[in-house]
């Protein structure tokens, strides 16, 4: 009986993991570029001296030295670019996704920041699509 209980627990954990894995989590801009600095810092100093983060220059420099840049950096660069895009997309979709919930739970609240903190307090919102949008935007 005890063994069965343990087994049941394992299945539950596996199911929860599976559910979580179906949706890609977004990460902060700070975390995204920290990965870039950690995994590509040496290559940036070696191949992209004097170049800056802005204007996609570091990205094109690293891509331009594809054969010489470390495999870790090459893999990270792609994921960093994807992470930043995913966070930007999540943040710009907030207003549209949460429009209905804002009208329902935060009627009369003025200002996007105030609407957000109102939505964050509404339990019903947290369970729905809008709640997920807030999480993906990094605004919990």
């Amino acid at each position, binding site marked *: 009986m005890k063994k069965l209980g343990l087994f049941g627990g394992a299945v539950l954990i596996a199911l929860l993991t599976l559910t979580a894995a179906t949706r890609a989590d977004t990460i902060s801009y700070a975390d995204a570029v920290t990965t870039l600095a950690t995994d590509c810092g040496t290559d940036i100093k070696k191949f992209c001296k004097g170049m800056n983060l802005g204007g996609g220059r570091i990205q094109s420099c690293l891509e331009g030295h594809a054969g010489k840049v470390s495999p870790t950096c090459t893999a990270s660069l792609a994921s960093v670019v994807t992470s930043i895009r995913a966070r930007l997309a999540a943040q710009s979709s907030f207003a549209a996704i949460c429009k209905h919930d804002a009208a329902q739970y935060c009627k009369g609240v003025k200002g996007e920041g105030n609407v*957000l903190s109102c939505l964050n307090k509404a339990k019903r919102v947290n369970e729905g699509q809008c709640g997920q949008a807030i999480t993906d935007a990094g605004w919990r």
Partner: protein
Amino acid sequence: MMNLRFGTLLTVGLMMAPGQASAQELSDKQLIRTLGRVEGAAPAIDVALLVQEAAASAGKGVASLPDWQNLSKLSQLIVEIEFENDSVAIEPKSYRTVGMIADALHHPNLRRYKFLVVGHTSSTGDAKHNLMLSQKRADAITEALSTTFAIAPDRLIAIGVGEEWPVDPANPQAADNRRVQLVNLGLVR
């Protein structure tokens, strides 16, 4: 949580836990609170005038000029962003700081505001060169924010003041004086 080392914070009415030293760690939420405090009586800032005054004051300082003093009355924070020597290239170890600023500026509490990015140097080297370098570095930071992190360019104004406004006037060559000041200028019009 974004853990970052910050330099001295010179903010009016800044809410901070007591006993914090000059180098501290702020969470993203504290950062947003710090920058989002807009006082009704905040002075209007004429950036063109600041640029003009900084250029005219190379080697003489701006700390005593009322227009520059007005900046101290606005919500702001000071961060350290390291650059390659005599270059506009941000060191990879400082990418996180720029990313953290992007996280804050994209937050709904701050999305309506525009910001002044002020670059400062220490007094090592020629004053005019420092003035020019600090302007280019402030430009580099705003460029990274508006391209890599898609902050609307009309929300960011870059200005370099060189060595003219040291945070440690007794030791103008000290490394603490090299810093970036991020000032909330109020609503985007």
